């Protein structure tokens, strides 16, 4: 099995640590991973702004980069959801369909495809888990508070395999953080207020770290934590699961 690693543009540029953790853990689990170097973006920033018709260049590039892999894995629920729902390539519809059906968000690839039962990771800290909406409500990575359905969490089940970790309970389990792609600048006031409220929930419950499957939400909350002078850090879930060394 060969996995094509898709690293979203902002993770590539700003959070290489999350991408490295993702790659290393997949390799530790015996997966052959390749990273196509000409990749850029899934096209979601344009599409969510109403410019889906401008994404064909991104789409064609994505198909070119990833059509040959058995699976495509990315450390982001949001980008994966976008590819699943919206990837089009008029010249290669079968290839686009193949990618849409074989692309996985990182934690669900571990739980659903690799069926990971244990992880050699240790993280003796209090951790708040942010449920990123597109992963949760879009990809069904975990149960949703609105629905009358059995509760489960794919990222949560993996975090429970980490030695010493303490997951803190939150007042609002799955409220949106307000990042929302271009929403974060187009609706700056509400976006920041949502982020402040989300961060406050984690702080009130004693989190030392806030983690999640989407670095974009974490980047937004990190920006707010920094501005508040908080010592609480954000960390992509792959870094915790990989047992990555903590950066000071």
């Amino acid at each position, binding site marked *: 099995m060969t996995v094509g690693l898709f*690293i979203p*543009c902002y*993770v*590539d*540029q*700003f*959070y*290489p*640590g999350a*991408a490295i953790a993702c*790659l290393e853990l997949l390799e530790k689990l015996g997966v052959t991973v*390749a*990273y196509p*170097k000409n990749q*850029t*973006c899934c*096209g979601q920033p*344009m*599409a969510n702004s*109403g*410019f*889906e018709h*401008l*994404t064909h*260049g*991104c789409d*064609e*590039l994505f198909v070119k980069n990833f059509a040959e892999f058995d699976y495509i894995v990315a450390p982001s629920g949001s980008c994966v959801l976008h590819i699943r729902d919206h990837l089009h390539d008029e010249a290669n519809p079968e290839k686009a369909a193949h990618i849409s059906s074989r692309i996985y968000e990182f934690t669900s690839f571990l739980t659903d495809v690799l069926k990971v039962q244990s992880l050699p990771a240790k993280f003796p800290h209090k951790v708040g888990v942010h449920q990123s*909406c*597109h992963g949760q409500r879009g990809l069904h990575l975990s149960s*949703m508070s*609105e*629905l*009358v*359905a059995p509760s489960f969490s794919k990222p949560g089940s993996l975090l429970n395999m980490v030695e010493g970790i303490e997951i803190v309970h939150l007042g*609002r389990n*799955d*409220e*949106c953080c*307000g990042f*929302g*792609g271009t*929403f*974060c*600048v187009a*609706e*700056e*006031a*509400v976006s*920041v*207020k*949502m982020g402040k*409220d989300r961060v406050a929930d984690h702080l009130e419950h004693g989190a030392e770290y806030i983690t999640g499957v989407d670095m974009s939400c974490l*980047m*937004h909350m*990190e*920006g*707010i934590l*920094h*501005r508040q002078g908080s010592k609480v850090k954000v960390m992509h879930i792959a870094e915790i699961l990989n047992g990555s060394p903590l950066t000071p």
Partner: protein
Amino acid sequence: MRYWLYNTNELMTNEPMNNEVKDHAELAEIFNRDEARVDWHDETLWWIRAKRDKSVHQIPEWEALRDTASQIKNNVLSNMESYLIQFEANAKANGITVHWAADGKEHNKIVHDILTRHGVNRMVKSKSMLTEELHLNEYLAENGIDVIDSDLGERIVQLAKEPPSHIVLPCIHKKKEEIGELFHQYLGTPAGNADPQFLTETARHHLRETFLTRKVALTGVNFAVAETGEFVVCTNEGNADMGAHLADVHIASMGFEKIIPERKHLGVFLRLLTRSATGQPITTYSSHFSKPREGEEMHIIIVDNGRTVQLGREEFRNSLKCIRCGACMNTCPVYRRSGGHSYHNAISGPIGAILAPNLDMEKYADLPFASTLCGSCSNVCPVKIDIHDQLYKWRQVIVKNGYATKAKKAGMQVMTFTLSNPAVYHTGGKIGRWVMKHAPFAVNNKLNPWYKQRDMPTPPNESFGEWYAKNRKG
């Protein structure tokens, strides 16, 4: 006269200022200048969302009920014409006068004509979001008719000369102290008294006089049953019943999507409606009206006002399944932190944002963007409208129809060019990170909306791509 827009002080004093068209982001920014008030608004509505959760989790078959309701409504949308004709025939047979109104103008004239024919210049009206949509109150006021809203929340916003900020909880944006002040001003209660029980009692006495003296009452319609020609009005205050029973003439206004095929389907919808809205098992009053009393009149006005157009929009037609419970507003993290008036439309929140562009795409072009697409709205919707998917689809339609700003268009074209060309992307990323490291003032300034209340991420020395080229054989 419209009362949508307020500056910060006006949010407190409720005096209208001007008719300048603003957008959701601007109005939300104004609302957010008083953070304590935003917290209060958010927590008040979250409390209702939590009540809803508690209530629906007591119904093991909840999701099956939602499915059933959704399917009944899908059937209605596919057979709208025949159900409406069936309803009209049965209602007429019951002795109800049925009117058809293509738009607000026709609807409002029908109401005015009925009032004129009876020689009255006063009317009592219970809760009807449709009449808000059609601006009936303003029209009747211009024609010298005095309308008193009998729903307590609606009466409060009417006194404040504001539109409702929520379809179920019209004055949810008002604190009890502000309501006390309004009652002091208009109903003569003692200054500074904000005791909810006292204020409610005052409103009750004030409305009692209205109920007893009005000859014509207008109500909304929650469900119109094709099979029987009857309609059902749901209230918690009994004000619709009080108005309709004491008046000689009952006018009921309904958007045509309120139709359901059979009476037995009420068993599904009445279980869903109030649990979704407030967490109550059922409305206090779910009143069936099927025929006028001897010698009296009952009218139904069936309104289109853009609904036919929406029904013809394949991607958006199922927004017409809405039963107006307001659950999507209570759960929406954006609505809770921007307030209903920031949507500058009679129906606010996520459902308003997918209904409004159908009425006026240019005026409401901002609304589908007032969302993070988190999807909570679609999950609470009792009739399973794919609200957040429709918000995404409206964005595409609005941009294609040319309602995106020029700056946004140019920005998107640059982004598209960069992200479609790996070499440009890699060089751009490298330059961007270098600038952030060595000239942070270039991004950390007031022109960057991210930086206003958030720090930028710390740029790493190398991108993942650069790291990978060094550490793995590509």
